[in-house]
């Protein structure tokens, strides 16, 4: 376990050194790229909570990216630029949407759950497309980024970078604490054997629903960050293939592990960036790569780390 911790610590230190390195080498682009990657890492970490630990295969996580982003955008549209308020609303609105979606979908199992979460995201997508006030499918621009009364200036790429890094670490830690609490034990127990956990007196439904809501709320935060990263909000955030990508990040990195989603987000987005720079037919490489990962790389990147073996 020592080596594992060491490597993860080095990774974090490397991440923390990126702005300095990028400035030194005159490659400021990598600050933007890695910030975007870390935002998706937060989204993937939120999905990991229910997917990796709860066994709930949500195929609609892009919905909360959209809800979070639109919360920021709509408030800004009405002249509210206070970041605390915007982000609180983003988290609360995503939690609320997750509560509604979860209340119906958590009752279903397996493929039904996959499809119903997908269906709800499609509904939100079409809602976004048809609401004319907020630009419909054209989306809307976020003219002023979230304001934190001088505490952090999101227009400063480096400050924004460190904020996202800090939030990513906090989210990973929170998820880690949560799954190792009594609540998390029930959640994991329900994943491995639902009948048994019912037999010992736990109905998994409320636990799974709460986890679903927390996951949605965290992903909403990622949405608020993405809105600020892009300075633009559009229904395309909720595209169903994006849900698939977030899911793949979790699997690639190693589901049910703390660092997995972050590793997966890094690997996928960087590989995508490299392949897209190389050939316009990059999807013909990425596709089989996905298949191979699923077939032969079951434990994900986190499984490569020493001490990465997990039970269950």
């Amino acid at each position, binding site marked *: 376990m020592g080596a594992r911790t060491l*490597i993860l610590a080095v990774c974090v230190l*490397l991440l923390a050194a990126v702005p300095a390195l990028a400035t030194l080498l005159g490659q400021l682009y990598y600050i*933007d*790229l890695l910030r975007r990657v870390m935002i998706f890492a937060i989204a993937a970490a939120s999905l990991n909570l229910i997917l990796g630990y709860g066994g709930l295969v949500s195929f609609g996580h892009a919905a909360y990216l959209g809800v979070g982003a639109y919360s920021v955008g709509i408030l800004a549209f009405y002249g509210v630029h206070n970041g605390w308020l915007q982000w609180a609303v983003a988290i609360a609105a995503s939690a609320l949407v997750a509560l509604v979606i979860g209340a119906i979908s958590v009752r279903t199992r397996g493929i039904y759950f996959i499809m119903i979460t997908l269906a709800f995201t499609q509904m939100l997508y079409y809602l976004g497309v048809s609401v004319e006030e907020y630009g419909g499918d*054209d989306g809307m621009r976020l003219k002023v980024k979230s304001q934190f009364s001088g505490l952090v200036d999101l227009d400063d790429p480096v400050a924004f970078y460190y904020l996202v890094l800090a939030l990513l670490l906090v989210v990973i830690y929170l998820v880690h604490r949560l799954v190792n609490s009594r609540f998390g034990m029930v959640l994991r127990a329900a994943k491995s054997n639902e009948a048994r956990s019912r037999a010992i007196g736990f109905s998994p439904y409320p636990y799974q629903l709460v986890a679903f809501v927390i996951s949605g709320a965290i992903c909403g935060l990622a949405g608020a960050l993405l809105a600020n990263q892009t300075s*633009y909000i*559009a229904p*395309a955030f909720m595209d169903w293939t994006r849900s698939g990508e977030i899911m793949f990040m979790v699997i690639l990195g190693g589901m049910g592990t703390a660092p997995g989603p972050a590793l997966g987000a890094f690997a996928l987005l*960087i590989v995508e960036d490299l392949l897209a720079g190389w050939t316009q037919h990059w999807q013909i490489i990425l596709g089989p790569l996905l298949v191979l990962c699923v077939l032969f790389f079951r434990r994900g990147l986190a499984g490569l780390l020493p001490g990465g073996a997990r039970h269950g």
Partner: protein
Amino acid sequence: MRTPVRMLAAVFAAASLVIAPLAAAQQKIKIGFITTLTGPAGIIGKHMKDSVELAMDHLGNKMGGVPVEVIFGDDQFRPDVGVQVTEEMLKKHQVDIMSGIIWSNVMMAVVPVVTGAGKVMVGTNAGASPLAGRACHPQYFSTSWNNDQTPEAMGKYMQEQGINDVYVLAPNYQAGKDMVAGFKRYYKGRIVEEIFTTPGQQDYQAEITQLRAKGPKAAFVFYPGGMGVQFVRQYFQAGLRERIPLYSVFTVDETTLPALKESAIGQWEAKFWSPDLNVPASKRYVADFRKKYGYTPAFYGAQSYDGMMLIDSAVRKNKGSLADTKAVVAAMRKADYDSIRGPFKWNVNQHPIQDFFLLRAEKGGPDGVQMKIQKKVFDDHKDSYYQDCKMAW
């Protein structure tokens, strides 16, 4: 196997891979060109990319005597990816100027990034109305049009023909609503019904049945890309082609004609350009394009070719450099080049003032069916938003 040292080595290897392309001393012009190269809309991107490469052939890969490199980027039809690719071009490839972009939403997300970095954006398709009006910017030029202009032309024509009882159909998204609004700005006759369909819808039999039941005198539609192929084909198969004339914008063009062929014959379209436009620069472009690629270019390509020629004029005026943005803007405003439109005029919002034509799909040409210009509908048409643009020239 899983030693920490190995893992660390892998991490560093990955990091060095990312940092590898170091800035090299450059004595050339770099143009960043963003379009959609993947997915079904990739066909539009192909017309644009091929046209940019043809423009480079015509220019001998040089602008004002300086070698040119065009870097292509794929926005995947997503605004956030568009922004990411733009940042990459500006910061990593350190391009001197940006161009391209098909979609309004990607354009509106990208323009502030480009202007914020002090560079110029030459849009070659997206015609978002805010960018023509209140959000216009000295560093944003368009070699295409404003979204509303084309349907305005069709509206004017149908108004002049005294066509009454028109049935209107468009997808239920922003561009669809803009098109209908533009159409109604000039068409004042009776509209039987306005129908907005689900974006990406494949089957229009239900809508066509409703349309037939209402018995309108004509139909006006906006169905770009695959939706257009589906709608026009199904309209033809429903036997309505001869009974109710179909007028459209951005529905039938050289990207969809090869798929439509006979089912498009008789379709009326409005456009600012067509491959048969009688302008020397345009004729050369179309002829060389057909020779090089073996297919007929659509207006998407023509606009992109035009964009490259516009950039070339600015480089020449500035003696082989794009470093001074103010000087670049001043040079571009002169528009001193052979446009595929013929003489080129800017409006104050840096969108072209241009003619619009009525086209009809007819038998003939190298592909079996071709768009033919029937008459000029608008002379020197200005868009409807330029008055909101407060820009000093």
